[in-house]
């Protein structure tokens, strides 16, 4: 039940937006998202609500960390 899915904001009108969720466009609510979002941003969507603006820079840093070989 705690799954949230990354979605790409396609259109935005106040606290409502249309977002691409794995290829399907759905209406989502931006009432409780943590930071201001714009068209082109990725958010995590849970039960129709954006709950977090995804951080691309953090994602790249995490990947970098994961590719490191322990002990080197």
């Amino acid at each position, binding site marked *: 039940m705690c799954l949230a899915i990354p979605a790409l904001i396609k259109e935005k009108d106040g606290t409502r937006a249309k977002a691409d969720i794995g290829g399907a466009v759905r209406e989502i609510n931006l009432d*409780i998202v943590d930071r201001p979002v714009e068209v082109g941003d990725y958010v995590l969507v849970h039960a129709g609500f954006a709950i977090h603006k995804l*951080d691309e820079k953090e994602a790249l840093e995490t990947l970098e960390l*994961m590719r490191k070989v*322990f002990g080197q």
Partner: protein
Amino acid sequence: MKLSSAFRGSDLARNIAENIKKATRRRWNLMEFCGTHTVAIFRHGLRSMLPAGLNLVSGPGCPVCVTSRRDIDRILHLAGMPGVVTATYGDMMKVPGSGMSLAEKRARGADVRVVYSITDALEIARANPSARVIFVAVGFETTAPSTAAVIRAAALEGVDNFHVLSLHKVTPPVVGALIEGGTEVDGFICPGHVCSIIGSRPLEPIARDYGKPCVIAGFEPADVLQAILMLVRQLEDGRSEVEIEYTRGVRPEGNPNALAAMNEVFRKVTAEWRGIGEVEATGLKLRDEFASFDAERLIDREIVSEPDPPGCRCGEVLRGELAPTGCALFGAACTPENPVGPCMVSSEGSCATYYQYVGRQRT
């Protein structure tokens, strides 16, 4: 970039698994608190990638599973009232109460609707002004802010036929309750999306006061493995800290807007967790300002529940004391088609997940 698929590569997972093998010197029990993690671990076969000394224990992080039988009976009571439309998430439909489930109640004529979001329930209320629409709100901190936001919107709009039965629960104190109850776990894989809302700070007492390291993890295979590696390193080094693996989804301070909505609409009360008992300050009740939306006010008699069915060991499974396959009913009297306990009902219940991925064989 694709923010999730980059974390699915098998080379990446193998590299992290190799690092886990190198880092693990002693035996450790790690609990994945969240049912969504349990599903990810089985779906991607992550257990088979871990060294023999690392044992993963599934925790109570399935909101449907921890809903008490008395709360299920309260839902059934409300759903049976004349003129009531009950709306809820799909997982709640088949959970058995003392007499029947919501699905059976619907089969006998009650108007029960499955919704994807609480906004759909508010829409049903707007479209049916002569009905009383009751939304059964289950879920942890990931879900509670959306409930709060919709109650706030309904109050502004003045929708007076919309009510919420809040069974929402907050999670950090229950981890403490598990440790105090004797669950033998060395460290916790903590729920990423709960922490998108609450941040990392509410977990600090678990690391500091109980000496159990916590790593907040995302849900892709590489995320879960990386979190396990971070936990093993803490344990082998003798550290006990809260670390965030899922940095793209979680900030230490959490989501201030969601927390403000929750705090505006709800106050914390003692809640009953199935298998664990009453835990102080883990329930979310509507504040007095929003009392007209509280479906609890519509309950007009004392609800007396029968004890759990004989043989059902969901309580021990939820506390991480028993693997689902250790229950005599598992896969025999209790299956997803005909569940005896809630852990076999929810798609994220430990028993349902084991049944899907391990099958009827005993492990």
